[in-house]
């Protein structure tokens, strides 16, 4: 599991946000387009791509995209 691929999958869940906004350090909760519906798309993507089932608390606990990547990795 590579962070580069994870970020790409993560970014695909957004329609309007510039691709350059997505880095390991991005505080994704602060992205203007981030919403509870986008969060569901991210949970679905992670379930599909990595076969990991996240909970709402995992999404809240992660500050950056890298944090979320590490949570997913720890559950694999």
């Amino acid at each position, binding site marked *: 599991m590579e962070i580069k691929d994870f970020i790409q999958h993560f970014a695909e869940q957004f329609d309007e946000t510039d691709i350059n906004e997505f880095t390991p350090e991005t505080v994704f909760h602060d992205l203007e387009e981030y*919403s*509870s*519906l986008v969060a*569901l798309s991210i949970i679905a993507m992670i379930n*599909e791509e990595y076969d990991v089932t*996240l909970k709402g608390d995992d999404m809240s606990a992660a500050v950056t995209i890298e944090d979320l990547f590490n949570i997913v990795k720890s559950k694999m």
Partner: protein
Amino acid sequence: MAFLEVKNVRIVGMSAGVPKRVINNLEQFNNYSKDYDAKAFVEQTGVLERRVDNIPTSDLCVPAAVKLMKDLGWEKSDIDAILFVSQNTDYILPATACIIQERLGLSKECYAMDIAMGCSGWVYGLSAATSLMQGGTIKKALLMCGDGKRRSEYDGPLFGFAGTVTALVYDESCSSIKFHLGTDGSSYDAIIIPDGGARNQVSPKSFELEEFDGKMVHRMETRMKGMDVFAFGISVVPKSVKQLAERFQLDYHACDYYVFHQANMKMNNMIMKKLKLPEEKVPSCMYHFGNTSSASIPLTIVTQLVESCKDRKTFLCCGFGVGLSWGTVVFDTKDLVLSELVEVEEDKNTKWV
């Protein structure tokens, strides 16, 4: 492992009652919470409109039962059992099924019981009703499932009200009904009304608004950890379908229809994709009725499959949600009677206690 195989019971008919009043999520429901975007909500959840009114669940089920009994040519005296599955009963006590026995004019020799289940309730109710019947002494039964009039007027843009009726007969010539049922009580608070039961009895504090998931709600309203429920649905449903298929040596791809609890479009599309099911075999009614809890599977069949259930059909259905609880069932039908949808208006005349 909760697998069941019930023999000698056949589903012969279904009907549904919904409030006549339509709420459109784009026109009448657009100030739900601070970051709520009605258009995005409709696009992503697939819920454009819902039926909502001041009508208890039983008032939706009773006229639907009358219609179905007429369409089937059943006499009141034929019915040996009624099961009422709901989390919005008429009273805390007595059981609503007892009141329905009298309202439908059924025999006092009728078995009547409530079952408190939500989104998985139709499958659970079906497992209970058919298990009860397989001995052959109860020949005809009505399974009523649904949720009407909730504890807050609108209860968010996702939920609609409906009451459904499924008619069952003892029939030694039919194929068996196969179930897989599961439970995960560790997430009991993923969907919950915290107050009003014995744990937190209702008090003036129950109606004080507090913030939950970005919305102001009181403690007599349903609160849902949406992300947890979503993650639960997309992972547990495909697993349950596969477990059922494996246990009973079925090719689940060979069914005619796959009817899932109408949770929301995003979740249901994901489930469909994970099971590699063709869209045309997965009917949906959430666009017009929203998430109708335990009514959603029969409501989908009644409203979407009217013309297609005349011949023999194999159904795979899965209900999942509050509990957390889930149930998958496979059954065959032949000449299934589907009554026309019954639209119900608020009854202001009957005097109830």
